[in-house]
């Protein structure tokens, strides 16, 4: 994928994350109640809507974060082959995704 497309995806995921993480912050901290209590966590875990929300948040967050990290690594270590950086980050991203997606899926 070209650098331009990767950057455009970075922008799109950034815009989506603004609303997603904003919603996550409001639900977790500003809406009152005990969102981190086991009952609330279990209730959200049984909802397919919340499951979809978490999986999409994970995909957008991982892409945005790892692409940002890639930009910094390539800028600071310009001699490092970009393909090595790319595949290392893709492997790390997939591993994190599998682990992090397993948690809500196993609880569903």
């Amino acid at each position: 994928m070209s650098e331009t497309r990767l950057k455009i995806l970075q922008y799109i995921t950034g815009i989506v994350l603004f609303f997603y993480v904003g919603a996550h912050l409001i639900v977790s901290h500003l809406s009152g109640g005990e969102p981190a209590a086991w009952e609330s966590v279990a209730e959200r875990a049984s909802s397919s809507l919340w499951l979809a929300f978490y999986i999409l948040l994970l995909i957008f967050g991982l892409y945005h974060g790892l692409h940002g990290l890639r930009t910094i690594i390539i800028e600071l270590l310009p001699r490092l082959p970009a393909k090595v950086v790319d595949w290392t980050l893709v492997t790390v991203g997939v591993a994190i995704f599998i682990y992090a997606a397993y948690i809500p899926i196993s609880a569903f």
Partner: protein
Amino acid sequence: MAMKATGSQKRHLPNRLGIKGWIWGGNYKLERYLYTLHRVTGLGLLLFVTLHLAMNGFRIGGVESWEDFMSVFGTSGFKVGEYLVAAAFIFHALNGGRLMLQHLGYTLGKPKPPVYPYVDSLRRRRPIVWAMLAMIVALAVYLLIEFVT
């Protein structure tokens, strides 16, 4: 006479300043420091998300494991950390929006003839930066009040 780049030079220009260039590399203006802060908050948020995802694993252990683990987060140190993460998110999101608009050329204004004293398009549009900073401060203060109360 221009020299021809060879081998790896052809593909990679050296980054002579390295990470020190984030702090100082000459006559840096406000936007350059916002860029540095954007990266620092981005790396901080990435670290937080990684830890957050790792900690979510405690819910697999069931109610006891979860409640034992969550009792750690009642301390004031964690509350301060939580607030800093939320403030970093606000800065990163709003500054990211500004960078996006400027990168795509929407907030740069029309080009002007280069008449002395030269002012670049970013500095001509500095009120946008001040407005963004005012929004960040207002949201950070609101969030602080929410966290404290």
